[in-house]
């Protein structure tokens, strides 16, 4: 029972990290219609950056914040490449973000080498109902919960957040009322970068990060995001938690070698079911 609880909480922590990346994916897709393939890259950049800064003796907190900001800048630059030029179709933008991800490989190898790196996180562990949980796992869960609350407040209560939502629901109408949809798109990319960076900073102490970890991260995040049809962040959060728990349970009870197949298979089934409910006319009209 205590093993089960440990796996459950660890799984929730993994799911939270996936949810942060997925929410960045959703934020960008809602506003711009672009699926950002470089979303996992932001997490990798932030993770590697923290490990370097901490290695240089920069205190905790400062190095994490700097890494998240750097990921935000990376997000903005990705956005400039992907949607900066007017008339770029969403599919072309997807291919550009693919290119950005590969370009990041080159930069990351030059700066950090090609070996996995880790970073010290919160040390110690607490015991809940007989289950030992690393404090870092609890931190991931707490930070994710706070982030989602802040995001909800941002999108629901602030002018800027409402402008972003307006672009998401109807770009044409948003332009008519004077919202600069391109600037909002760039803002969404920067937000996506921050969220991805936050995830990277949080998971680097849990599992070592190397330059090509981004494929696993983006595929998991995309799997979570398709639960919410790439537009509903809360459903994506649910999907991410489900994925995280399922993968950790599979690994914990000895099916670890198949956890990737489980996640990917689930994603394919969800997408196919969703596609059969949607008509081509609706999709092409959007």
């Amino acid at each position, binding site marked *: 029972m205590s093993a089960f609880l440990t796996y459950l909480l660890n799984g929730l922590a993994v799911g939270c990290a996936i949810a942060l990346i997925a929410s960045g994916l959703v934020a960008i897709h809602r506003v711009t219609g672009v699926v950002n393939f470089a979303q996992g890259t932001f997490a990798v950049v932030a993770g590697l950056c923290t490990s370097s800064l901490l290695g240089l003796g920069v205190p905790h907190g400062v190095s994490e914040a700097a890494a998240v900001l750097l990921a935000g800048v990376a997000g903005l630059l990705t956005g400039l490449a992907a949607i900066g030029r007017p008339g770029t179709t969403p599919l072309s933008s*997807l291919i550009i973000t693919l290119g950005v991800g590969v370009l990041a*490989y080159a930069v990351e190898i030059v700066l950090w080498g090609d070996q996995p790196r880790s970073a010290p996180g919160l040390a110690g562990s607490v015991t809940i109902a007989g289950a030992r949980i690393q404090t870092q796992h609890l931190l991931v869960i707490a930070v994710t919960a706070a982030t989602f609350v802040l995001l909800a407040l941002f999108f629901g209560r602030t002018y800027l957040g409402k402008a972003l939502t307006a672009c998401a629901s109807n770009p044409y109408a948003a332009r008519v009322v004077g919202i600069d949809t391109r600037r909002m798109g760039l803002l969404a990319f920067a937000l996506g970068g921050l969220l991805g960076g936050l995830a990277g900073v949080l998971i680097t102490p849990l599992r070592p990060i190397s330059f090509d970890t981004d494929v696993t991260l983006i595929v998991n995040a995309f799997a979570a995001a398709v639960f919410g049809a790439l537009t509903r962040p809360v459903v994506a959060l649910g999907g991410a938690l489900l994925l995280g728990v399922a993968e950790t349970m599979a690994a914990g009870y000895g099916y670890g070698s198949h956890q990737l*197949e489980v996640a990917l298979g689930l994603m394919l089934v969800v997408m196919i079911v969703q596609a059969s409910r949607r008509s081509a006319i609706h999709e092409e009209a959007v």
Partner: protein
Amino acid sequence: MKRIAAAALAVAVALGLPLVLDDSALAVYVLLGLAAIVTVGVSLLMGFAGQVSLGQGAFYGVGAYTAALLALNGFPPLLGLVAAPLMAAVFAVLIGMPLLRLRGHHLAFATLAVQLILLSLAGQLEFTGGDIGLQGIPQFGIGSWEMDSAAAYAWLTWAALGLVMLVTHHVIASRPGRALRALATSETAAASSGIPVGRYKLVVFALSAAFAGLAGGIYCFYTGYVAPGSFPVLISIQYIVMAVVGGLGTVWGALAGASAITLLVQGLDRLAALPGMPTYAPSVLSYAVYALVLIGVVLFLPQGLVPALTRRDRPGRRGRAS
């Protein structure tokens, strides 16, 4: 008439080159041909059916493993080479039936997922040799004749490329080709004009998979071993770069894109091997080139090299997303 002469000249050059190239250049020549074969399929799928496959490396791998397993179990290599594209096409039909309901980025991620699943399975299953893969694959040959020179593989590869380009040319020029172009712009409009959208998409998907499978089959005989590491995700991205650079939906564009990227990467590899360069230089340079070329071409030359150079611009033919 001029175009036939140009094509004849290209064939003559392609067949003549193996006679003058040295061994290391021949290796590049064979790999270039193989990449071009896959890229023709990717270009057909992206340019005509308007679908992005991030998992083309999976079909390449299916072809390679099929040919390798048959050859290792004592079947004649020719059977392996014929079975490789067929198996890849059958696999494409099986996964395409559910997956091709998806479009745009959904399909891109779905095909990527299929490749990741296959790679993971190939690394774990016993009959595929796990992570070590399959080794000691016999040389390609027919009957008692065995193909043992690199030049022979170059001819085989480029003959296969010729066949693939010829097939693609006829598909494009035919009535189904026009139908494909129509469904790339709008599936709804195509369907209401009586085009069997689902069936055509499946056929193109299978055809592009068959091309990749054929290249995979030749690859396994040429290198003599296959392993999951031979088919990384990056190889699928590389085919997309080549197709986009050359110009989507053009037969010659695929060849031009594959040549441009292969030669560029080879040139940089030479540069990276110079003394004084860090050990990570080759991979860094090739990643950077793939990325910058891909981004640059999508942004500033969306029609690709071949249409831009030949000035046969067809306006408004940029990939329509879902």
